[in-house]
């Protein structure tokens, strides 16, 4: 099982994402200018920032050459996980429905939150139980999910824990096929009790299970 973790100029959570992936398999960086994915089995578009996000978040990163490869990989059913800024990039790239708007507070918020797994059949939740609660941190300024159309919801914030005013407490969604998942919380920051929680491992374990099943 080999993960590819995309690095844009200005990325900052790619190191944590690689470390999380390496707990269940191998991982390598994919530079934003790359034109191939090096044969990886799954792609993580990590959190942090891309190109400084001085324009609408993710709107420049989606034009990076590597994103064309990620889109083709996703169309072929390859598992793709977008975390925070990665979620924003996947929405900008049209790989996931909807958009992320500025938090209702208009402020950056970094906080441990509870999320509930509402769909345990995606590429990144098959190791979870339905209605299972995970403790993971959020840290973002632009995490208020909005989508006017019906959408495949994967995670919701627990009651009262919505940190950003997201529609229907949505924390993460998938494409129709369930192979592309995006979420605002950071599972890669919750893979070791040293940092407070290891619940985030479930997402990476799910991807590894899926690779075995293929």
């Amino acid at each position, binding site marked *: 099982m080999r993960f590819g973790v995309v690095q844009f100029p200005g990325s900052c*959570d790619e*190191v944590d994402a690689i470390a999380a992936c390496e707990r269940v398999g191998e991982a390598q960086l994919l530079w934003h200018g790359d034109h191939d994915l090096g044969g990886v089995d799954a792609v993580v578009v990590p959190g942090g920032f891309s190109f400084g996000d001085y324009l609408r978040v993710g709107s420049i990163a989606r034009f990076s050459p590597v994103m064309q490869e990620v889109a083709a990989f996703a169309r072929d059913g390859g598992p793709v996980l977008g975390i925070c800024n990665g979620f924003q990039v996947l929405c900008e790239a049209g790989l996931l429905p909807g958009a992320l708007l500025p938090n209702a507070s208009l402020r950056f918020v970094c906080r441990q939150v509870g999320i509930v797994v509402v769909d345990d059949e995606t590429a990144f939740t098959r190791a979870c139980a339905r209605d299972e609660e995970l403790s993971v*941190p959020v840290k973002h300024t632009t995490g208020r999910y909005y989508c006017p159309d019906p959408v495949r919801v994967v995670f919701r914030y627990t009651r009262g824990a919505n940190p950003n005013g997201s529609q229907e407490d949505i924390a993460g969604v998938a494409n129709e096929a369930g192979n592309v998942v995006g979420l605002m919380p950071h599972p890669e920051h919750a893979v070791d009790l040293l940092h407070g929680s290891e619940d985030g491992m479930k997402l990476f374990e799910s991807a590894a299970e899926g690779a075995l099943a293929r």
Partner: protein
Amino acid sequence: MPAETAAVPGVGRAVALGLTREEYALVCEKLAREPNEVELAMFSLLWSEHCAYKHSKRLLRTLPTEGARVVMGPGENAGAVDVGDGWAVAFKVESHNHPSAVEPFQGAATGVGGILRDIFAIGARPIAVLDSLRFGEPTSERSRYLLDRAVAGIGHYGNSVGVPTVGGEVYFEGPYETNCLVNAMALGLARRDDMIRSAAAGVGNPVILFGASTGRDGIGGASVLASAELEDDDDSKRPSVQVGDPFTENKLIECSLELLERRLLVSLQDLGAAGLTSSASEMASAGGVGIDLDVACVPLREDDMAPFEIMVSESQERMLCVAEPGRVDEVLRVCEKWEVHGTVVGQVTATRRMRILRGDEVVGDIPVEALVDDCPLYDLAPEPPSAPIYAAPRAILEGGRSVREILLALLASPNIASRRPLFEQYDCLVGARTARRPEQADAAVLALPNGRGIGVSIDGSGRRVAIDPYRGTVEAVLECAANLACVGAEPLGLTNCLNFGNPEKPHIAWQLTESIRGLGDACRALGIPVVGGNVSLYNEGADGPIYPTPVVGLVGELPNPRAAGRLGFCREGDAIALVGAFSPRVPGSELAKLRGEALPGELPETDVAVVRGVQEAIRDAVRAGVLASAHDVAEGGVLVAVAESCLAGGIGGGRQGGIGARLAGGIGARLDLGGDAEDLLFGEGTGGFVVSGSRDALRALPDARIIGTVGGDALEAVGVSWTLASLREAHAALAPLFP
């Protein structure tokens, strides 16, 4: 000679730029002629207080700087200590007070950016930021504005650059109303073998500028802003505030570290205050060489910039390095990969002169020594004030209030209320090192690659130092060391930022002199070397000087970050003890402030050796895992410390090592303090800790008094019961400031 072709600006211009007439005469003597515009601009900056430490250098030389674990001490871009297995931790704190008072968002943001560059300039990867903030009372609209924008600026830069903000402190006091303080501290991690110094070497070696292009932002920042008192027309100084670009800094960090990893550089230096002028001349001075710089080679944002503007611009996110000629292409390729400008702008010479060229024309020529070493140092004329300097604070809690009301008022006081609305605006997690985040423990804890950990804390109570500069500064060091003890960390090194008023005034000189004496004595008594620091003077506004505010940052090590202490009670039935020979007093405390009492004439003396013994006992008990919680008694006194430990019970206590954001409520405590003496409940002093654990474990600690039991849903003491909900509501008093 350049001076003969260019117009001579003269002494009037020198005085306008901040030099005294005597200093100008000395400049002329060193040059054997009058300086031209470029040279005068360079002198005015390097001979400013901010760059030359001319009023503090003699005092700073009295501080202890030696220690077995010191890797780099004062004089380099940052200090560093050995943390074992070939690793070193670099750290430094620096002020960005005056820029933040003029434009708080960019002032605070670039404060973070600047201190980060000091860290990676010595080859260390930045791993954490902490901040120390001081504002006027939040009842003032201006203070709320400064707080809001400074916090947003710190978050903007730190979050985007990808370095976690793991801790900090903020206090609100009237004397900071016009002159707020924004101090930022950064830590970095380096392989000892990969670290680099700033000394230029190798005659003929090219000097390369890389990073952002150079614009007019920040021109004259060091002299105009940092070395003069603030006045009413500060809008006119706004162009002197730099604008930060954390995206570029992120690339600059990766670029610099890759250059060092590939061993392509001879020396490296960041561009901070006074821009190219100070970094080039300090590199030349440290290496005993000269440097020729061609301003025509510097990439500019605006193409009509004059040579003096290019030399003094404080545009952010720039670095200067020296490389061997054969390595230049490789250096420039690394710059290209990270999409930052890299340009050869000069070369190392044997002349020991800074020569500034524009193409073939020499526009400035100064002996390095005159610029860097010959600034006159001044002795202070300290004199204790004959009458109180600071007005009594406005009373907001009348006398005759009950214990119930007093505790709630203290918890809601801006200096004690939860900092959650601030620190939630900072990413405290990026980098996967944070083992204790804000409000989990008295100090932040970071895991190191060798399996060990470091604890880090920043502290300093200006009000206590205003009462007694010597004892107040001793207290600040002890308080910071107590924070480390509570996580099980042993101090390795100290950095400091000395924020004071105008040192040319005798009573400010006295505050500074006494404070540095206290800092030195406390460090010697605790065996902690001072590895670096920063001085910020002239912190005065129309209403007078700030409280004298020495901010100390301590870094310590602990063998196992997984066993680091926590501040919250977590087990029903645990005993609670007050540890330490602790004799707190209300005068000078937060309660006295709420009552509008004037500052008392003195602070009680502290026996540092005794406090050190207690701290070591707490540290050992935390490391041994026998304490469920440890929290030092600080602002608000014992009852506030107990309440804080109750409220933090939900964080990290409920499940093994977990985060308690999902846990409802905490654990109340039943207290028996044997009386309702106000001093014991609400008084302040150093050397006291509130800990919980088994009775036997607590009894083994020095001067331990068992004062209660953990359990229930309320805090009960002296016949009063507070529900956790009521404590939590009071403690959340800062939330309305960030709607």
